[in-house]
């Protein structure tokens, strides 16, 4: 008997390409001219693809690691850490386009997540409940610091709000490439080790009986997901709902096995965010709507739908 390897996810690839093409030519094409279309829109669409893929992927991983389909990539302190990084930059006068900004936010996001992990490991191993609790603790503490800063130095609060909501600030292509590589490597890693995330759902004890070291696997997936989230957030701020909705929807389409889920969540996230960003950019031109507002607009009806579906289940 043969294994059904059909990556029914592959239909997503042309879908992403089509969305990208649509995005390129939405919004006053003739007035824009080729320079803007290729010089501004294309990098922005690529950024949306990278960020969407990174968030979709890490959302799927966290939903698998925490065995909770309502987890999102920020649940373990990542968004608070990123914000803290942004606030620090604000205090030090580091501009949004500076590479130092990217590095600080990346470091903030990644280290907050790892701090959460280490905190949870206090009791010999980082169980799901411990992880969530320490995530809440770390987020709350960092958020309090952030709020303190914002009230004392309201100078840049608006651009910080913009960061928090998530948006594609005109950024350096070099940074886009860095994020792109990080996300690609993380997704590739996930695609290689997918079966361990499946086995992880069986619980710690059973996973051990199947020859898997649950601690090591948890650490590896944690690292991959945290890297990919940090790369996404450093580029576009804390865009919400992508990491929550996309894996959830794709699980319904492709099934829960991570063989398909990880890659399809990445592709699905890219698709979703390209479309959301196109709306954010073109719906009220020249006004720029932060893309996080658009994804949140999708989020509310999604949760209502979820309530209805689960309620009947």
């Amino acid at each position: 008997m043969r294994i059904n390897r059909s990556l029914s996810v592959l239909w997503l690839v042309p879908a992403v390409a089509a969305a990208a093409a649509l995005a390129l030519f939405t919004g006053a094409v003739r007035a824009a001219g080729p320079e803007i279309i290729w010089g501004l829109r294309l990098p922005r669409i690529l950024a949306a693809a990278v960020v969407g893929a990174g968030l979709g992927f890490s959302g799927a991983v966290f939903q698998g690691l925490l065995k909770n389909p309502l987890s999102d990539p920020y649940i373990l302190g990542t968004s608070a850490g990123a914000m803290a990084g942004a606030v620090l930059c604000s205090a030090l006068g580091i501009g949004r386009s500076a590479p130092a900004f990217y590095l600080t936010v990346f470091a903030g996001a990644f280290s907050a997540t790892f701090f959460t992990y280490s905190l949870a490991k206090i009791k010999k191993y980082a169980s799901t409940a411990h992880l969530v609790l320490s995530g809440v603790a770390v987020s709350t503490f960092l958020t309090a610091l952030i709020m303190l800063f914002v009230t004392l130095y309201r100078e840049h609060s608006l651009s910080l709000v913009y960061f928090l909501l998530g948006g594609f600030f005109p950024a350096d292509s070099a940074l886009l490439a860095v994020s792109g590589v990080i996300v690609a490597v993380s997704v590739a890693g996930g695609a290689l080790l997918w079966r361990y995330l499946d086995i992880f759902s069986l619980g710690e004890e059973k996973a051990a009986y199947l020859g898997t070291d649950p601690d090591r696997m948890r650490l590896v997936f944690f690292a991959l997901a945290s890297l990919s989230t940090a790369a996404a957030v450093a580029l576009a701020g804390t865009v919400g709902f992508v990491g929550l909705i996309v894996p959830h929807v794709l699980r319904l389409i492709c099934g829960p096995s991570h063989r398909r889920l990880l890659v399809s969540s990445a592709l699905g996230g890219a698709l979703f965010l390209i479309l959301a960003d196109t709306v954010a950019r073109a719906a009220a031109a020249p006004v720029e709507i932060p893309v996080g507002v658009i994804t949140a607009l999708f989020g509310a009806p999604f949760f209502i739908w979820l309530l209805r579906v689960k309620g009947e289940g």
Partner: protein
Amino acid sequence: MRHKKTSGKTLPAAGVFAILGLCAFSGHAQAKRVVSLLPSYTEIIFELGAGTELAGVSTYCDWPPGAREITKVGDYLRPNLEKIYSLKPDLVFAGTWQGSSVAQDLRNAGMKVVELPEERRVEDIYRTIGLIAAELDRKKEAAALIKKMKAGLKSGPAGTLRPLIYLEVDEGGWTVGARSFLSDAIERAGGRNIFAGEEKGYFQASWEAVVKKDPAAVLLLSGSASDFGRRPLAAGLKAVRNGRVFTGLDRDAFSRPGPRLAAEIRKLKDWLRESGTK
């Protein structure tokens, strides 16, 4: 001003009352206790010489330096009602902010609130000054201040060119449309706001829109010129190529509709002329 009650000493008491009466006729009305919820009002009040009458100011009020010592009552959107009440002000200067119940809440607590209309053009500032001065009985000082500001605005040789200008108040495309006095300020300085066609106050513009308009000059109220130059396609902008990215304006002085605005506009006018911005 409080007067001390002295028991059993009517003559000194009468004397005190007499002095008070004289003060009442000396030209200044009995000094009031005033709370200002907006930095521009605070600056105007100080310029009118009534700074000593301020009992409370918003957390953002930091000019002139004396304002920093005054009790803080929260920010203009969510003032600390209890704090304001405890200061027992005779009146509170607030703005007519859409959708805000601040004025009503304060009135409900029994305080007198003067709501000053939003300034949409530079000359609206004179109206604000007039309204504040009327309440504080400083009409002479107001006239002098307005005269000084008008002179400041007229000063400096006018350039003949009217270059297109992009004003960024906060990093990330935060700029102004026709409804903000800042758009008018740019006009007064001899430039043209690229978003003057938008019927908006403060809003976030997409980078693409800015690049499309290719302004002759860029004013940054936050962020550095080098950071600005790093944005995609920024290097190709006229303003960046010709080095016309100006960060020399004082952010607070320029963005508050108050007494310092005229001087900043003059600064901008001079820079535009000297740099030969077209």
